[in-house]
């Protein structure tokens, strides 16, 4: 008897949303087949992308529906046979091959819940090195790497960790922000579903570096599959001794609790998230004090995004310099860009900073899904500016984007074709802010409501010039007077829409 053929079928939200469970069930019913539920490579447009291990090579087929399984069998897909859905060896697909994978290098490759798979692919090497070299070396390496917060703010991670390490107090915390609320972003989700042990390892390293024995993950409720996969990963880590008491045989103990958010966008702001973690309404806190000094339950707390923490294990394993070799200027390392909206090949693209928007959208993304002309691109979520054709050659790094009035944020890129109504998008930005404002400060709470009204008046041609000026002044007030980015950045999409697409506001 020959051994069963391994077929990989992703258990990841995008793949499952396109029918991966049904496909897995069908394939599991075939003779001499073992189905492994891997994560996703991030090539969402091909999902469900299944792979057949033909002995050394993994041959991909996608997007596969349950109804395709019969014809795949007839085509001999278990031996890598030809079929209309065959995409060849997955590692050779240009979309994947042309990336620079660091944080996401195991995503798609391994069984996310197998500690053995993780170990076999360099897992826990960072934590072991941390134990061997000590907390100070960890802090040094993170500083050397130039890693900046990937949640959107881009604050240097090493400096944040050092502040918490230096803060006085017995009890300190690691709080991981997995409240990935920006439209067009899903990198936190892909990492947590496809390589969850990386996040667990990253959090443990952070805890070791700053002297924290407890971590919290604040995961949004809109990710139920992520919650289930991650819970299993926590169990696997505990059972194998990589989480809990005396991790990996060391004298360091660390554990993680997961809290589920409740549908509030503003809870992605770090201080609102801390309030929510404490069981309260997600109202913004005044800063200072910084969370690094007085964070969760008033204790010194490292607040980092999933991708930030997930980038750490290899920074420690391979050294900060290895990471700093990627990128340009002060934007070191890689960023997981996410291509979304009206795009032909949507998915995750991890690249060193420095490529242009056009390379990303056209070379990787293949242009619009509708085949129409690109008209607008929103970068950095609902608080990010809208860009037009003339900006497509802007280089993607934190500083270059700040120069053109934008921000890279969490790396989400949403493409719109020429059917978009930019006045409607500007109005939506204000409306969203009105819906999601925590209500603590007036510019955000009231300004957003007035913003919707003023845009409506402009569109109705009431005192056009006066109202256009009023909108501009209102935006100034929100930018200058809001407590956090919710009110402070909502004007970015509004202003950019008015500036680059003025014709849409004249009807």
């Amino acid at each position, binding site marked *: 008897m020959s051994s069963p053929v391994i077929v990989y079928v992703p258990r990841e*939200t*995008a793949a*499952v*949303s*396109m029918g991966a469970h049904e496909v897995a069930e069908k394939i599991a019913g075939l003779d001499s087949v073992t189905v492994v539920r891997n994560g996703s490579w991030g090539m*969402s*447009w091909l*999902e469900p992308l299944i792979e057949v291990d033909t002995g050394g090579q993994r041959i991909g087929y996608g997007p596969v529906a349950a109804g395709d399984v019969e014809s795949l069998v007839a085509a001999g897909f278990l031996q890598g046979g030809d079929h209309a859905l065959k995409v060849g060896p997955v590692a050779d697909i240009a979309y994947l091959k042309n990336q620079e994978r660091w944080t996401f290098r195991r995503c798609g490759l391994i069984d996310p819940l197998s500690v053995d798979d993780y170990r076999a692919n360099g897992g826990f090497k960072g934590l072991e090195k941390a134990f061997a070299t000590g907390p100070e070396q960890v802090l040094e390496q993170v500083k050397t790497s130039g890693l900046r917060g990937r949640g959107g703010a881009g604050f240097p991670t090493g400096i944040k960790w050092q502040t918490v390490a230096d803060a006085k107090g017995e009890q300190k915390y690691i709080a991981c922000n997995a409240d*990935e*609320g*920006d*439209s*067009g*972003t*899903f990198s*936190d*989700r892909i990492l947590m579903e496809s390589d969850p042990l990386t996040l667990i390892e990253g959090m443990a390293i952070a805890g070791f570096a700053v002297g924290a024995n407890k971590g919290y993950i604040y995961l*949004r*409720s*809109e*990710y*139920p599959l992520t919650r289930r996969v991650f819970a299993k990963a926590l169990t696997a880590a505990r059972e194998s001794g990589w989480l809990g008491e005396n991790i990996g045989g060391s004298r360091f103990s660390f554990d993680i609790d997961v*809290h*589920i*958010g*409740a*549908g*509030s*966008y503003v809870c992605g702001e770090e201080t609102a998230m801390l309030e*929510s*973690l*404490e*069981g*309260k*309404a*997600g109202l913004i806190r005044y800063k200072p004090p910084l969370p690094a000094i007085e964070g969760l*339950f008033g204790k010194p707390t490292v607040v980092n995004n999933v991708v930030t923490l997930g980038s750490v294990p290899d920074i420690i394993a391979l050294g900060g310099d290895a990471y700093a070799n990627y990128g340009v200027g002060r934007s070191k390392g890689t960023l997981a860009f*996410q*291509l*979304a*909206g*009206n*795009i032909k090949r*949507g*998915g*995750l693209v991890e690249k060193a900073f420095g490529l242009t928007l056009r390379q990303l959208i056209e070379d990787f993304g293949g242009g619009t*899904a509708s085949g129409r002309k690109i008209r607008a691109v*929103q970068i950095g979520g*609902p608080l990010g500016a809208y860009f037009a054709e003339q900006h497509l050659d802007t280089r993607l790094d934190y500083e270059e984007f700040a120069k053109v009035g934008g921000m890279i944020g969490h790396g*989400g890129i*949403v*493409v719109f*074709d020429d059917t*978009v109504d930019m006045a409607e*998008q500007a109005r*939506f930005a204000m409306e*969203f802010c009105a*819906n*999601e404002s*925590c209500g603590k400060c007036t510019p955000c709470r009231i300004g957003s409501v007035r913003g919707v009204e003023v845009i409506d008046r402009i569109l109705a041609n009431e005192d056009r010039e006066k109202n256009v000026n009023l909108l501009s002044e209102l935006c100034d007030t929100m930018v200058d007077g809001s407590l956090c980015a919710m009110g402070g950045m909502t004007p970015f999409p509004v202003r950019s829409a008015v500036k680059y697409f003025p014709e849409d506001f004249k009807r």
Partner: protein
Amino acid sequence: MLLMAVQNEEAKTVHEIATVFGARPEMLVQILHAFVQRYGFISEEAIRQIASEVNLSRADVHGVVSFYHDFRTTEPGRHVVRICQAESCQAMGSRELTSHASRQLGIDMHETTEDGQISLEPVYCLGNCACSPAVMIDEKTYGRVDKNRLDSLLQQCGGRS
């Protein structure tokens, strides 16, 4: 009598849930989630019970319940259909999809069909943006949902369509 029986049952559940999490105020959001998971919504009576379990005032609990979109205070339909209203899905026609759903079901956002089968709710991003537009029905996410796919999904929920 029946109402009292229901209230007793609720009180017991609140106590059970609170015990699982440890009846601490910092677990309030998680306790409310567990309660919504069980009953679909949070009643006035539940707020009273929960407040007493975690030693907070009713006003405190009410403040948290009303802050978060997930904590509804009215009974939902048997199935909750959430259509993403955020930018990525807008770029792929979620506005039209939403109007279509409203027309098919004869209800607006935040409403429930008369037969109590389906509630329609907005959601701002399901993280499935590369497969926009996205829809979540109960706890399952669907990608690239066009009108036809939505119709067949609604049909499976027992909705008119």
